[in-house]
């Protein structure tokens, strides 16, 4: 396939040369500041909801649990647990938003219908599943305050609506 290789390499060089954007570190810094402000706003909203609604916000019908160490416990707190159920008909996760009250390690447990995965856009190294029958796939992630976008990585599933958000408060 020498001809295809030649065409591909020419097209690659041409494409790269067509990108005339100049990296702007100052603009990048402004975007980082903007994201921080936005994350802080989201955190503030989550905290208000948590304070008003109780110690821990649990989505409608959710099996999410956020572990809290007993008073006086000296060991470090265990990772919070976030249970996410995948649903095939229609293609979705059980909830649109999963709230975690404070940053730190969270154990995500993906259960529900078979054949689905859980990926987080902001944490590309993590993909749970695809689920076998009866399986619960687990993974521990270190979440900072802010929002994380969750999706099923099986082709077509995210596009069909299998997406959700994890909102992490600042404790």
């Amino acid at each position: 396939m020498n001809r295809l290789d030649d065409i591909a390499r020419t097209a690659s060089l041409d494409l790269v040369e067509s990108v005339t954007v100049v990296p702007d570190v100052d603009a990048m810094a402004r975007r980082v500041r903007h994201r921080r402000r936005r994350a802080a706003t989201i955190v503030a909203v989550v905290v208000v909801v948590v304070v008003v609604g109780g110690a821990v916000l649990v989505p409608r019908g959710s099996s999410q649990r956020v572990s809290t160490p007993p008073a006086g416990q000296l060991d470090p707190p265990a990772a919070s647990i976030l249970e996410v159920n995948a649903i095939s008909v229609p293609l979705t996760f059980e909830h649109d938003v999963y709230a975690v009250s404070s940053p730190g390690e969270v154990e995500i447990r993906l259960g529900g219908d078979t054949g689905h995965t859980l990926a987080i856009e902001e944490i590309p190294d993590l993909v749970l599943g695809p689920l076998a029958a009866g399986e619960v796939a687990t993974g521990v992630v270190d979440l900072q305050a802010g929002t994380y976008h969750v999706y099923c990585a099986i082709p077509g599933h995210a596009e069909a609506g299998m997406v959700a958000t994890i909102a992490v408060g600042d404790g």
Partner: protein
Amino acid sequence: MEPDVRDEEILPAQVVAERFDDFYTREYRRMVGLALALTGDSRVAEDLAQDAFIAAHRKWSEVGSYDKPAAWVRRVITNRSRSLARRARVETRALLRLASTASTVTAPSESTEEFWHAVRALPRQQATCVTLRYLEDLDVAEIAADLGCAESTVRVHLHRGRLALAQRLRLEEETS
């Protein structure tokens, strides 16, 4: 581009192998090119690349210590470009900026447009493997590491993708 601004706003506190802004300056155009190849939309490509670099900045104390931090950013871009839900949000954001910003991509040649259009018409994994192979000049092992899959899987995607590309580009003699 004052150094004090960069130090305060870009660099994480922890010392890493390379300064984030040096990495960003060196890799940004390439990553926009990768996103452009995968999406076909220059403004979406820029937003995807920016998002990926912001994600890298957020974890730079860790990402910056990797042997190949660019591979981490590439993976973020390829992951995000395949989420149409995500792309819809990015496209909306990009459209809002449309009137106020000049394009930072000049139109490539017609044959280049035709080639990348054909690549994007491939099944997603094939398109990603072909793009990383040609645009990023990665070998099979590097593509497998980037995508987190087996080398044999990459070989299959590349083989099928190249066959399909030859057919789409009417290189009949290549497929016979």
